């Protein structure tokens, strides 16, 4: 009896000793997270690198070093060049539109008005919805025959009759014409990322000290002057954060293109992730697929450097 009590006491004391050692608890608490990330992000990343410099396929999984062969091969295919070009153009154009519109939207949402909660709910919906499902809504909205947009244009006599502004055909075929299909994809990127960018900018706007704005008001600064010389410069760091996330989510997405156009017409709207998917998963050319996806990496590296710089700046202040 006494013995068990001593053991129990020893055990409690031991536990007590261990659970008070910060230098042990710290790494112990952190270890599972690090392990998870190394095993399922770090190692796969290394595999991606290994694949892209080898001749691996689903059928023949031995890794033979192939040097730059995959990169040379994919650089010769027009589909890859199109995908690379599309990825760059879609991303840059949509980010420019997002950052401009998000600034406007953030200014609007910082005002007080009736029904603000509901407006915020509606505006947040595109970002809250799984993107694949949101894109289905767009697919039907842009239908080649039953698009309500086309119906409205016909109703306004802008389409579907001789001499109409947009042509005599009944429909615009948004996803069947290369330029319109590209514009539709970019519109969905904007639609999806605008809410997030706007709420991040809003957080920046509300953090501007009120006395600065009051002082500007006393000094008789106009709305535009306050906007361009006080508000925008002050929220510039937050704007880079908004841009960062918008960029990451845009590059990290393949659902929009996969669901909306499947890369078509032909392959003219393919982007790197969808092309890597067709190559690496559907056709089983692992090496080429991995090499294709890896072209996203330089962009990401640049973005990562941007964050590190930013975080260093906030540490100083």
């Amino acid at each position, binding site marked *: 009896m006494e013995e068990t009590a001593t053991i129990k006491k020893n055990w409690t004391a031991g536990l007590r000793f261990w659970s008070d050692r910060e230098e042990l608890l*710290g790494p112990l*608490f952190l270890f599972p*997270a690090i392990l*998870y990330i190394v095993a399922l992000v770090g190692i796969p990343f290394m595999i991606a690198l290994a694949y892209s410099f080898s001749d691996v396929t689903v059928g023949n999984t031995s890794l033979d070093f192939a040097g730059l062969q995959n990169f040379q091969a994919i650089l010769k295919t027009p589909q890859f060049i199109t995908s690379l070009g599309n990825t760059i153009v879609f991303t840059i154009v949509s980010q420019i539109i997002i950052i401009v519109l998000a600034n406007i939207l953030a200014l609007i949402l910082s005002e007080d008005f009736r029904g603000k909660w509901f407006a915020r709910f509606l505006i*947040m919906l595109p*970002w809250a919805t799984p993107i694949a499902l949101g894109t289905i809504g767009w697919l039907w909205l842009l239908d080649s025959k039953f698009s309500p947009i086309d119906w409205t244009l016909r109703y306004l006599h802008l389409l579907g009759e001789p001499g109409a502004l947009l042509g005599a055909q009944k429909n615009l075929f948004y996803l069947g014409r290369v330029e319109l299909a590209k514009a539709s994809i970019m519109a969905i990127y904007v639609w999806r990322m605008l809410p997030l960018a706007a709420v991040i900018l809003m957080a920046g706007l509300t953090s501007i000290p009120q006395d600065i704005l009051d002082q500007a008001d006393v000094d008789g600064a106009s709305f535009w002057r306050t906007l361009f010389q006080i508000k925008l410069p002050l929220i510039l760091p937050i704007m880079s954060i908004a841009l960062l996330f918008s960029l990451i989510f845009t590059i990290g997405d393949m*659902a929009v293109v996969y669901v909306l156009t499947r890369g078509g017409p032909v392959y003219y709207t393919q982007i790197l992730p969808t092309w890597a998917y067709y190559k690496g998963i559907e056709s089983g050319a692992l090496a080429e697929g991995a090499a294709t996806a890896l072209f996203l990496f330089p962009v990401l590296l640049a973005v990562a450097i941007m964050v590190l710089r930013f975080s260093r700046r906030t540490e100083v202040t």
Partner: protein
Amino acid sequence: MKNLKRWLKRSLLYASVAVFCFFSASPFIWMLITMFKQDKDLYRSANNPFIFNEPPTLEHLNLLINRTNFPVFLRNSIFIGVLVVMITLVISIPAAYSLARLVGSWGERAGIGIFLVYLVPPTLLFIPLTRVVVSLGLHNSLWSMVLVYPTITIPFSTWLLMGFFKSIPRDLEEAARVDGYSRLMSFFKVIMPLSVSGIVAVIAFTFTLTLHEFVYALAFVTSSAQRTISVGVPTELVRGDVFYWQSLMAAAAIVAIPVGLVYNVFLDRLVAGFTMGAVKG
């Protein structure tokens, strides 16, 4: 004159709110109208698409729930979501606490390191991860997603919780330790109860992130019975070239609107996570 200017400003404000709301909501409005339409109403291009030319019907909702795999997709997504939430909490709560309090100067750097992992998109890793999943024998299984999704959710959750733990005054823990609690016990007795709202937010985001995920779910799973909402709806509810538009729209709306409401409730906390404490809320 001043009144007129004020009135103009207000009208401009309401007009621009309306324009943004319309742009954001239009696919959802179109979903909600479409899901209740009869075929003969929907598929006549002369009909006004915005009104019910024929009486609304629940036929397609019925079809979706009783004669498609939609309930299976929903169940799969919830199963994955619940398990991923649990894994994420078990791993990221201690990690966040460790980064916030226990590890010293290099905690900050390790925190940024973990956050950077969040910036590695699934589109970069899905090919090697598919091979990893195949070699573990998890191909075509829900467990593949249970295993891999925490790589997306842990970094962000850790980051969010780290900010949360840092905002709790150290004095509280020290008081608990003076009262005789150990370091570990003071974490459970003091920090955890104070962090409930942060943890609830993490649960909400983790769950919705797993609902959103598309790339891995598409690459890992090919059989219909193991698909999630995100991939199942766009790939399975279209048979050949036949789109069941009303049912598709119903499927999208049923998921989209509740998730939208959840996001709205937790929005401020989420933004705080995204701005990395650069904004003091």
